[in-house]
Structure formats: structure tokens, C-alpha cells
């Protein structure tokens, strides 16, 4: 057989495969982007253009006033500050407590370790809704109601985060710890200088999940606060909907504003985020 023909065939097969792959990726990407596209274009539409059939993909006039209207519905400036403050402090706090607890469960020996860990895991099975009223009572009695303490302190630890990091820390060989300790390294130093750098993707995943969780937290904030000065962006977003209808164009304008910080965060941390997802199998 002609060798040129063979090369061409191989070349063709490889390119067809690649073309199909890109086509598939393009279609998947378009499907994923469609809601974002709809959100952004809707945020500029007239109320009457939102649900028009057949769909109107682009607004006739790009109305910035939807953003102004939405912004003025509630003190969104304050809401954004609170969302940031809550998300950043809970993320930092959770990462610290989770690393310490996960290390203890993964690498230390102490009485009742497994029982304690099982109890911790069991708390994951209790639906959050069931705990809402007892938590509300606790927060109120502690005098934290409608204060930052209520928004931050209960979220400084996470059983799920501990579980995730413990699994990751366990994959680090014990011999490494033994060698370090023989060389006079304390547990804390070993944790911060060896375990943490080795576990960066998993820690980033915990941090990002926490940041997103805090940024999107709705019910807890709504229940534990009363005043506008303590509320966050997701609470503000509910203002646009009622039982009988929704002001979609304003809701979408506010939603665009709400996801911008998350998008920026993702752009800066996407490498770690993707690594974390790949290694832990969680997204």
C-alpha cells in the first residue's frame, strides 16, 4: 500500500477526531453559557421583552437603567460589603480550623478518635432545616442576633471540610512525618511546612466551596438578621420575586452584579480549583 495514503488516512482520522472533539466541546460550552448569556442580555431588556416568544436573544435597546433600578431597590452596597466580609472571614476561619482538625484525625493517635469522627460525620446527616429553630434560639440567647457574630462564628468550622482534608492528609505517607519528627520538627511545623503545601489543591477546594457557600448563603442570613445593615446579596435578590410574578430584568441585573466577584475569584484561582476538583472528585 502507498505509504502516503497511509499518512493521509492517519492525518485525516486524527483531524476528524479533533474536529468532532472541538465540536462537542463547543456545543457543551454553548449549553453551559446559555444561562449566563440569557442572564446578561435579560438584564438589559425591557420587561416586555423578557419572555417574548419566539425568544428575543438581544434587547432592542440596551437598558442600563435596569441596573440602576435594581441597585436602588435595596442598599446593595452594604449587602455586597456584608457578603464579602462574611465570605472572606468564614473562608479563612474554616480553612484554619479544618486543617488543624483534619490533621488530628488523619495523623494523630488519641482516645476515641474514630468514635469522635463518626459522631462528626453523623452530624452531616441532620437536615439543616431541622436545626434552624434550635440554632436561632442559641444565636438569640448568645446575644448574637442581627450581628456579624451570627453570620460568621457558626461557620468557622465545617465537618465536610474536615472529612475532605482528612482523606487527603491520610494519603501523605506517615514515614514523612516520622522523618520530620526525628529531625526535631514539631507537629505544627510539620503541618504548616509539609502537609499544607502538599495539600494545596484540596485546601483550595475547601476554601472555594466555603467562599461560594457563604457568598450564596440565604436562609441563615435571612433568619439570623433583621436589619439591612446586616443582610447580604442573596437576601436582596429575593426582593424581585413574589408569589405571582418576578421582575426578571431587575433580578437578572442584580444577579449579574452578584456573580461578578465570584467570576473574578474563579479567574484567579481556576488552576487550583480544577486541580482540587480533579483530585478530590468534588465540584
Amino acid at each position, binding site marked *: 500500500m502507498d505509504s502516503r495514503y497511509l499518512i493521509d488516512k492517519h492525518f485525516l482520522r486524527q483531524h476528524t477526531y479533533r474536529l468532532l472533539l472541538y465540536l462537542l466541546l463547543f456545543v457543551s460550552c454553548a449549553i453551559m453559557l446559555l444561562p449566563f448569556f440569557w442572564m446578561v442580555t435579560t438584564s438589559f431588556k425591557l420587561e*416586555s*421583552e423578557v*419572555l417574548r*416568544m419566539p425568544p428575543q436573544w438581544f434587547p432592542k435597546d440596551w437598558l442600563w437603567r435596569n441596573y440602576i433600578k435594581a441597585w436602588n431597590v435595596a442598599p446593595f452596597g452594604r449587602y455586597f460589603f456584608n457578603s464579602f466580609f462574611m465570605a472572606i472571614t468564614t473562608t479563612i476561619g474554616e480553612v484554619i480550623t479544618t486543617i488543624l482538625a483534619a490533621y488530628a484525625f488523619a495523623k494523630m493517635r488519641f482516645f476515641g478518635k474514630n468514635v469522635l469522627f463518626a459522631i462528626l460525620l453523623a452530624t452531616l446527616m441532620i437536615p439543616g432545616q431541622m436545626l434552624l429553630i434550635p440554632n436561632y434560639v442559641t444565636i438569640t440567647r448568645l446575644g448574637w442576633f442581627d450581628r456579624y457574630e451570627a453570620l460568621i462564628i457558626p461557620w468557622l468550622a465545617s465537618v465536610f471540610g474536615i472529612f475532605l482534608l482528612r482523606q487527603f492528609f491520610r494519603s501523605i505517607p506517615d514515614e514523612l512525618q516520622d522523618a520530620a519528627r526525628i529531625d526535631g520538627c514539631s507537629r505544627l511545623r510539620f503541618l504548616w511546612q509539609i502537609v499544607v503545601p502538599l495539600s494545596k489543591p484540596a485546601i483550595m477546594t475547601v476554601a472555594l466551596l466555603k467562599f461560594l457557600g457563604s457568598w450564596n448563603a440565604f436562609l441563615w442570613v435571612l433568619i439570623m438578621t433583621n436589619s439591612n445593615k446586616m443582610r447580604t446579596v442573596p437576601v436582596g435578590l*429575593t*426582593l424581585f420575586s413574589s408569589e405571582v*410574578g418576578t421582575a426578571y430584568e431587575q433580578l437578572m441585573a442584580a444577579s449579574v452584579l452578584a456573580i461578578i466577584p465570584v467570576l473574578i475569584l474563579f479567574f484567579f484561582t481556576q488552576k487550583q480549583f480544577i486541580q482540587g476538583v480533579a483530585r478530590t472528585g468534588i465540584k
Partner: protein
Amino acid sequence: MKSWKIGVLGLVVVLLFGLLAVADDPVTITFWHAMSSRHQPNLQKLIDDFMVEYPNITVEAIYQGGYGDLQQKINAAVVAGNVPAIAQVYENWVTPIVEVLYPIGPAMTDEEKADIIDGLVGSNTYNGILYTVPFNKSIMVFYYRKDLVPTPPVTWEEYLQMAKDLTADTNDDGTIDQFGTGFRPAANPEQFLNFLDEAGGSILNEDWTEVTINNEAGLQAMEYAVSLAPYSLVTSSYMSDAFQANQVCMFIDTSAGYYYNNQAAETAGFEMGVVRVPMGPVNQRSMIQGTNLAVFDINQTQAQKDAAVLLARFLLRAENTVFWAEKGGYQPVTKSAYVTEEWESWVATHEYQQAMSAQMLDGFAQILHPNYGDIRYVIATMFEEAMLGEATPKEALDNGAAEIEALLE
């Protein structure tokens, strides 16, 4: 003057000043509500008017999310003891917490009480006392496309026939794209409860000891609903969305949805009409929806409770319930409001209000059973199953009745 007389006079003066001082003491009350951004400016306007009239009272209106969120928050606050002075409540939320409420009725005049629309008195009365008062009330009415329905149906039979006639495959692709009517059973089981009442049925008997939803009247109502199913778009979205997309020609929906339904019609380029719901075998009533106002008795000073009662009474005044209705798409909740010049001229210039007003004045309200939230969910499920053909009307009703029975225990 004798010294004892001076003493008495002095005491009287001191008491009078004391009373005046108490009356003028500044008092702050909180009002928890679930009104979205469209309604908040109107609510704030009413509150501002109230504060002008009672300058010593400050009302802090606090948005607490949707109705479900508000209910959760009220329940939690009752346990923790940090309730608001006044809040929006649904009838069934009140039943389990009535002992922590401060009844508004005893502080009202007989005229004020008698002025509340008849259909709303029972649903605000607990243990024979008017505890709460109606606030943002809407009524189920019949919406239709004027271009396709020149004469709206008056009876169930006409409704069914028209739904059948209007259902069409307009683009000949083998699937129906224009339905005569539409239902959203999961979100709006009140559409079925209308049929149930019109057939003379009820969910429970008078003293809540027996489930009656699957009796003969219940079956008649469900069979009628299912007879409409082939000509109905069964959806979970707002009816206004389907209306705008030319998917439905007529439907039963709350009057509070008028703004959105009309907006949909205008966008789609047709005119919308509003009439009473079609007449059933027994009556032509429909369900009143929306919340009432409750004043809390715990952790509030007497001055706060009095101020909250004053606010509730203020909101019931004809001019205020009319303002709230005109601006927010709700219905006035007192009889006197319907004969005010303002409302009559509003109705004269807003044709759709004629049907809504007529429907409201003989509407029926939600039952007060404490588990109504769960009962409503069961009804929604059975209604959906029947409409989607997953169960026969009898099966759906019997299954639902058994579930409701369990909720009564």
C-alpha cells in the same frame, strides 16, 4: 382652699400629665412582612402616613423574604421570644401560635369589625375572638384572551366546550401548541379548591374530624378538572409566561397576578379580559388568598401592642385598603371601601375590577387547620397526578384523603 382639696387637685393634675406623658412616649414597633420590591414603596407610604398621624410611633418595616421564609422566621422567633410587634401571617400559621398573639378584635369598634368582608371574618377568628385582621388579599378570577374568546364562559359546561374548541395545533406539527386553558397544580392547588367549593365540597368537615375531599362533590370537582386536562397546559411556571407565549387562551388565577398577566398580554399583542370564574353546580365562589396581620403578645410592652393594633386598624381604613388595592393589585378588605367614591371611580375606569370586586365579596377563605400547609401540599400532589393522568380522579382523591387523614392525627 382646704388642703385636702389642693391635694386632690394636685393628684389629678399629676395623673393627667402622667397620662399625657405616657400617650406621647415614643414607641418603636417592628413589622415583619414578605412584600416584594414592587409592593414595598406602597407599604412604606402607608406606614409613613401612619407615622404622620401618630408621631410618637415609629414603625420599622422589615422584609423577611418570601412567605415560606417569613413563616420559618416567625416560628423560630416565637420559640426564642424575639417576635416582632406585628407581622403578616397566613391563617394556618396562626392556629398553632394563637396563644402568643394579642387579639386585635377586642381593641376595635363594633363598626370596624362589622365592616370586614364576611368571607374574611371566620378566617381571622380563633376561639371566637377576632385575633387577626385581613391585609393583602386577592381573589381567584378568570382571565381570557379577548381576541379568541369574544364571550367568556359563564358555566362549567361552557368553559369545557370553549377549552376544547380553542385547543389547536396551529402549526400542524402534530403537537398541540395552543391550549384552551391551563393549570399549575403543583404551585396553585387553589385552582382545584375553587372547583371543589363550586361543587359544594370541602377539604374537611366543620370540626376537622373527618376528611371530606373525596366525597361525591370532591369527585365531581376532580372529574371536571380532569375533563379539562386534554385541553389544558399543565405547567409549573407562572400562567403569565404561558399566556405571553400564546400557549393558553384562558385560565383561573389570582387577582394579584393581574399586573403580570396583563403585561404578558400586552407583550404578546392581544387584549386580556377578566370575569368571574365560571359557575359550578352549586355556586360561583372562588378562593380568597393572601395574608392577615397579627399582633404579638410576648416580649412587647403594652405601648408596643397598642401601637401595633393602631397600625392594623389604620391599614383597615377604607382609604388605606383602597390605596393598597389600587397600587398593589390586591382587593379592599372592608365593605365600606367598596362604596367609597375613590374605589367606585377606580372600578369605573378599570373594567377588570368589576369582576374582581364581585368575586371578592362572596369569596371563601382558607381553612385554619394548623396542618393546612401540609394538607395543601397533598392537594397539590393529587391535583397534579390527576391532571397528568397518573391516577384516576377517584384514585387521586382517595390517596390524597388518606394522606390528609394522617395529617389530622
